[in-house]
C-alpha cells in the first residue's frame, strides 16, 4: 500500500516537472529584457572581448566571402547604441549572416554592451 502511494507521488512529481520548468523558463525569459536597459558598457572590458571581431572588422578593405562577397562594415567610431542593436539583431536572428549570428550567439548582454562601448562612439 505504502509502495503504491510512493509510486503515485513519484508519478505526480514527474508530471509536474515540465510545468515547473516552463514557469522557470518564463521568468528567465523575462529577465534579459530588464537587463537590456540596465547594462552599461565598459570600453576597457570590451578591449578584452574583441578577439572574434578583429580578424574582419580591424582589417581595412576586408571582404566577407560567404554567403556573398562585400566589404565588412566599418564599425570603429559607429554609434555605440547602433552596434548594440546590430549585435542583438544577429543574436535574435532578425538579421542574418552566418558568421555574425554565430559570434553574437556567444555574447551576453554585458559582452555586447562592452564591445559597443569599445568600438563605438558615445
Amino acid at each position, binding site marked *: 500500500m505504502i509502495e503504491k502511494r510512493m509510486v503515485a507521488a513519484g508519478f505526480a512529481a514527474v508530471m509536474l516537472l515540465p510545468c515547473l520548468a516552463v514557469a522557470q523558463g518564463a521568468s528567465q525569459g523575462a529577465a534579459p529584457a530588464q537587463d537590456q536597459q540596465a547594462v552599461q558598457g565598459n570600453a576597457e572590458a570590451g578591449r578584452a572581448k574583441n578577439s572574434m571581431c578583429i580578424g574582419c572588422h580591424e582589417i581595412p578593405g576586408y571582404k566577407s566571402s560567404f554567403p556573398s562577397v562585400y566589404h565588412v562594415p*566599418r564599425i570603429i567610431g559607429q554609434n555605440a547604441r547602433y552596434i548594440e542593436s546590430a549585435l542583438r539583431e544577429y543574436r535574435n536572428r532578425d538579421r542574418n549572416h552566418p558568421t555574425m549570428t554565430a559570434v553574437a550567439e556567444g555574447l551576453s548582454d554585458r559582452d555586447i554592451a562592452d564591445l559597443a562601448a569599445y568600438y563605438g562612439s558615445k
Partner: protein
Amino acid sequence: MRRLEMNMRAFPAFSAFRPLSRTTPRLLPLVGAFAAAAAFALPAQAQSIDAGRQKAEEVCAACHGKDGNTPIDPSYPKLAGQYQDYLEHSLLDYKHDRRKNPIMGAQAKPLSRADIRNVAAYYASLPGTVSNHADRIGR
C-alpha cells in the same frame, strides 16, 4: 614551344594562349557582339552620386542626418564613409525582409535597384568618421 603544347594538353586552360591565327577569325564576330553588348549594358550599371544625393535627401536625411554622419537617434547608424557595397547589401536585405526592421523595411521597399546603388554610392562618397583602422579606436 613543344613544352608549351604539352602544357596545353595537360591544362586545357592554357589553350587560351595557343597561336591566335587558328581561332581568331572565327571568334571575331562573337567578340564584337560581346563588346557591343557590354557597351550597352555598362551605362545601366553605372551609379550616379548626384541622383543618390537627391534620393538620400528625400528619403534618408531626416533620420540619418543631412551629412549622413549625424543620425537623430543614437541607435541609428552613421552612413557617411561606409563601404558602398555594404550599404547596398543592407538596403537590399531591408527591401527583401532578410533584415527585419519596421522603419527601414518601409523606407527601402519603394527604392529601385538603381536608387539603392545610387544612394549607397552617395553615402560612401561622403567624408565620415567610421573606420576599420585599429588606431581610430577610442577617438
